[in-house]
């Protein structure tokens, strides 16, 4: 990344942010300034990755500290947030809200204030551009898992956010679909923040943040952070410590 010093209202800024969910502290005093083009957030299950994603997206509010996305508070400036930030959830069935492809794609545009006819025209043009004009009016229930992922990504892209949060974007997909989606992600002009437990998918990032127990364990270029992470995961895998319950 060439731009090492960025203005404070560029990207996502967390200042001493803490989150407690059902009485359990999940994130502790996180202070991060995320402004690089490709950022990876890595950690084990339960490390607070998904909570961090929901925090950045404004879906939950910090108990202490502040979160700013392009200078705005993501829990308050909901309408502005639509052009600042999009999210791709892990399970498409939790993200697709409408029974047909074109309704799903048009919804975000209408939320951003486009009249229905404009939104529909944009959707049709978008499908044609991607060689999928025959998808108009198709029931989402008939799409394959990979096709649903693609639909979710397009629904986000049509809203043209400056940053996209990806939650385990390739988990559970077959290899050709993974390759295809990874290629689609690589070509995007947006800032991408990828949340995953798979170090291999983060080698091309500008910056990797390793989250452990709700705090930053390491933060830097992938060549520096990923070997540390992998070594620690190897070590933990060798122990039989999975009997401990989260308190």
């Amino acid at each position, binding site marked *: 990344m060439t731009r090492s010093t960025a203005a404070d209202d560029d990207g996502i800024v967390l200042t001493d942010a803490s989150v407690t969910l059902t009485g359990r502290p999940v994130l502790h005093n996180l202070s991060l300034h995320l402004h690089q083009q490709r950022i990876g957030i890595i950690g084990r299950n339960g490390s607070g990755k998904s909570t961090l994603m929901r925090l950045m997206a404004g879906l939950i509010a910090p108990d202490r500290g502040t979160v700013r996305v392009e200078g705005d508070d993501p829990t308050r400036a*909901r309408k502005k947030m639509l052009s600042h930030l999009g999210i791709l959830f892990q399970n498409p069935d939790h993200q697709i*809200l*409408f029974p047909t492809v074109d*309704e799903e794609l048009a*919804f*975000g545009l209408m939320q951003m204030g486009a009249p229905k006819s404009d939104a529909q025209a944009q959707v049709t043009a978008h499908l044609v551009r991607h060689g999928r004009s025959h998808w108009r009016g198709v029931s989402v*229930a008939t799409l394959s898992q990979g096709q649903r992922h693609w639909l979710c990504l397009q629904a986000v892209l049509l809203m043209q956010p400056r940053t996209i949060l990806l939650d385990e974007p390739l988990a559970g997909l077959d290899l050709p679909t993974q390759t295809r989606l990874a290629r689609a992600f690589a070509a995007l002009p947006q800032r991408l923040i990828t949340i995953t437990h798979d170090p291999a998918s983060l080698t091309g990032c500008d910056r990797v943040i390793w989250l452990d127990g709700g705090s930053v364990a390491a933060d830097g270029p992938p060549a520096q952070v990923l070997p540390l992470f992998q070594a620690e995961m190897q070590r933990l895998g060798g122990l039989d410590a999975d009997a401990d319950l989260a308190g």
Partner: protein
Amino acid sequence: MLTLTSPVETPLHRLRAGVKLAALALFTFALFWTRSPLWLGVALGLVIAVYLTGGTIFARHGARMLRPLWPFIAVIALWHLWQDDLSGGAVVLLRMVAAVAAANLVTMTTRLSDMITVLERLARPLSPLLPPRRLALAIALVIRFIPVLSERAAQLSLAYRARSGRAPGWRLFAPVALAALDDAECVAQALRARGGAG
């Protein structure tokens, strides 16, 4: 409802949804207004004739859609036979079959989005209480999540049977309800992420 729309194009597909729904309302009203088995028979004949304008494949599909009525027909027929009230039984049966067949006909020939547009227009007087956009969103969510939830129920049923010889039956009710609440939470977040219901 999505899968109920017939892929066979009929002249009825080209009629406006509002017109069809109004005609259906009038027709059903007339069915309950008359008590003559003869007139009800004529009404049923009329419905069958309209089905046949869509071709035999379409009409046969329409007949198959009436299959869920059989248990009711059997019970009503047996009751009236036992009561020795043949004309009364004929009135009830003809009325029921004609009304359901006519309603199916409208469903089979009307696209869902057109149906929702009509509903939104009808609900406009309620707009201070219930914004039409929100109503449309609610309808869409229901249609979207019926297949998702039934798949979820099927998965849980498989998981149950994998560890038990018997079918789960009512025991599935609580897990399915909890899974539905869980899914609803995720969907609410996805909705909020794209600007909410407002």
